């Protein structure tokens, strides 16, 4: 029983870990997008 539980926990820990990494990657992309948008706005507002 304990081995089955352990196997299940490890598998879901692995999947959740990967999803966490994907979320962090997504946040990084959002930050970069905001930076680019801000740069674009600055350029457009330049006289």
């Amino acid at each position, binding site marked *: 029983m304990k081995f089955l539980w352990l*196997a*299940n926990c490890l*598998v879901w820990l*692995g999947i959740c870990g*990967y999803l966490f990494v994907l979320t962090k990657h997504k946040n990084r*992309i959002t930050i970069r997008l905001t930076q*680019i948008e801000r740069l674009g706005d600055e350029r457009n507002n330049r006289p």
Partner: protein
Amino acid sequence: MTLRQHWSLLVISVTGIMLLISQWFIWFYAPVEAQMGLVQKIFYLHLPLAWWGFVSFFLVFIFSILFLCRCDDNFDLLAGAAAEIGVLFCTLVLLTGILWAKAAWNTWWTWEPRLSTTLVMWFVYSGYLVLRKSFGVEQKQKTFCAVLGILGFLDVPLVFFSARLWRSIHPTVMASRQGGLPSEMWLTVLISLLAWAGLFLTLLWLRYSQLKIADRLDRLISYG
């Protein structure tokens, strides 16, 4: 919410429900095997992970060939996404296998053909991922990765057939018709395979979308 986000949510929800159903089948529907007891149920996690791991590496192989033939960066990104998921699944296969081995063979690890070739496969594709993250000249790096993606696949059929080709203590499920499993076990295997297929495709799609956006942003920044 955009139409794309609606679809994403739907796909993720369906995958989640399928995985919950597969868990129900594993814990409550599948009969307890007479000799090994509950530990045998690790097989319902181990087998789908191994199969979809193989499929990932096959996709790396196909997309690497397509990248070399057509020089389309999308194929390189798809190969990268497939390799990541393949390594994740392969890691989980090794971990669940180790637990099963301890219960069945009374040892965590033994250097028998199936286990050894799987470990080699894990090292090859981990190396592939390290190569993707490292050194400079972009196009050259992508070509190197594609070549490794093709050459690395040589080990995959070896893993699959190792238990038949050499003397191995690893069980072969598909050796006989229906793998010699009772119908309830067979149904649980099929449900698990389907559920993990859903997760595999969802992860592949999510990761590919992310890599594609990141690649576009990189280009935008480099063009100034």
